[in-house]
């Protein structure tokens, strides 16, 4: 127990340093490009939100780009065509994603395992085609030049530093919420369902309702990430709803470690960094992403967080026994 306590302190210290570093980013533009860090934060939130479903619910969705992208488009619609303020735009995006999560989730949880993965993928593809055809989305060009506007009518978000802190606060808030959910009674029931569904059912838990609530929560937080990304880049594009992104987010969770709350954020950092630096090489990005995917599945299923945990001789928190 003592080892656990000291490594917990070490973990907290590392986390605190990361947060301090993130707070300092806008003041050190010579070191890192803040806009890239904003994108990274959005993807980290997306990956952690996705992993809430995969890692803790044991539900593998292969269509999470649908929530991310729909929220991006809805936010775009709200701030550009309806002229709403950015906070309302973000709210509209996250709520829209939650409603979509309710629809897709209630269909998908009628099946399990790989069927569920196929269903979410197919429904997300339908969402993709719908956005391709809707008149306001600009099809292949995307919705461009979204105004960032003034937060609460006061803070000008055209200033990258203000935008950065909004993204940072909402991302950290989202992650704190995920952490809270995982360690709440609700989270424990969800994990019990993952481990042994018939037993949870026989104990009287309404399994379907729990799964659906988790699905909606994951979709809403993915939507929050998508809305933020749309505001940061002032763009909602088809690549935000494409199955490539759904695959990327699975990779982030897998690579970072899906048994932990924050592991997927590490995965997101690696994948985004890779895509950022390999961008000039075109199709090499796809090829290398695929190779990393295969290597992870073959021999790195615990992810970075899992590897770190076993390195420090501490079992990863809440590791599912069936997957390891």
């Amino acid at each position: 127990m003592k080892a656990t306590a000291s490594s917990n302190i070490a973990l907290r210290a590392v986390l605190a340093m990361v947060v301090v570093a993130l707070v300092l980013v806008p003041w050190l533009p010579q070191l890192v490009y803040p806009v890239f860090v904003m994108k990274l934060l959005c993807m980290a939130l997306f990956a952690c939100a996705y992993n809430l479903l995969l890692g803790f619910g044991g539900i593998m969705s292969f269509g999470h780009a649908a929530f991310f992208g729909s929220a991006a488009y809805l936010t775009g619609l709200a701030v550009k065509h309806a002229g709403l303020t950015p906070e309302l735009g973000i709210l509209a995006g996250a709520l829209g994603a939650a409603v979509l999560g309710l629809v897709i989730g209630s269909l998908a949880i009628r099946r399990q395992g790989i069927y569920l993965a196929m269903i979410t993928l197919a429904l997300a593809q339908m969402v993709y085609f719908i956005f391709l055809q809707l008149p306001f989305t600009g099809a292949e060009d995307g919705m461009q030049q979204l105004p960032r506007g003034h937060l609460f009518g006061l803070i000008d978000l055209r200033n990258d530093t203000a935008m950065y802190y909004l993204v940072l606060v909402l991302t950290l808030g989202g992650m704190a919420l995920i952490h809270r959910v995982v360690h709440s009674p609700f989270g424990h029931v969800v994990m019990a369902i993952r481990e042994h569904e018939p037993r949870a059912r026989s104990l009287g838990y309404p399994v379907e309702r729990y799964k659906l609530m988790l699905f909606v929560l994951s979709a809403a937080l993915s939507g929050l990430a998508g809305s933020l990304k749309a505001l940061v880049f002032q763009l909602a594009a088809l690549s935000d709803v494409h199955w490539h992104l759904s695959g990327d987010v699975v990779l982030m969770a897998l690579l970072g470690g899906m048994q932990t709350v924050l592991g997927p954020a590490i995965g997101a950092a690696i994948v985004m960094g890779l895509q950022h630096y390999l961008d000039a090489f075109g199709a090499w990005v796809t090829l290398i992403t695929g190779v990393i995917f295969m290597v992870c599945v073959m021999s790195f299923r615990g992810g970075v967080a899992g590897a770190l945990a076993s390195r420090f001789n501490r079992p990863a928190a809440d590791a599912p026994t069936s997957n390891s």
Partner: protein
Amino acid sequence: MIEIFGMPLSVIAGQTMLGLVNGCFYAVLSLGLALIFGLLRIVNFAHGAFFMAGAFGAWMLLRFVGIGYWWSLLLVPLLVGLVGALFERTLLSRLRGLDPIYGLLLTFGLVLVLEGGFRLLFGSSGQPYPVPNALKGTLQLGFMVLPVYRAWVIAAALAACALSWWLIERTPLGAQLRAATEKDALTQSFGINVPRLLTLTYGAGIALAAFTGVLAAPILHVNPSMGSDLVIVVFAIVVIGGMGSMFGSIVTALAIGVIEGWTKVFYSEASSTIIFVLMALVLLLRPRGLFGREGTA
């Protein structure tokens, strides 16, 4: 001119035929997918990528070696099937006993590798593949004009389905395969080499996908992303039909192809989404799929 709901019969017949051609592609692909799933318990995401590899294989053989369509139809499935079998033996087989999700993820990684690789080699734009001379021209049927090549595709795809059915249901090898699908440990204890059977099945499923790719090469543009869009549709069809019976999945695939074709005539805006809407409906009304057996979720 005969009209149905304001549409001339020739248009409807033409789209029905196009839908049947697509339905044939869906049928052979979902057959291979169901075959692999039945025995290996793996959803082969790479099915579409191997379909694409088949089309590219035919194109490369013609372009670089000068080998024509008919030989391609035989050689490409063999070669690509061999690659598939090798993939199963070296990588996929190591995931046996783990959560089936990992099989899906590994084959998804392979999709990215194959798509990225072909895009690096040949670019994203489509490559044309000519219709073989013997199958050029059209047949005049009175109510519609039927291109010979499309008729050939339907015949060849149905023949491939029939051959697969015969192999699985009527030969000793097929009997072993069905036994291993039901109870693999028991089958193994009878002295049947189940791991080899798995490799063979995966290779055969991949060969079917590559065969479909060669058939599709003269119709669709040969390009790196032609497979992944298709495989998502085939996933939806597998969910609609259920993977319980071969006959069921073939019938479902053909019907879906025709329905998609008709949607193009009557409400073309919905033609790309109709299959997914149907899938949602089936999930609401009969979650295990039209031909799915109880408890195969």
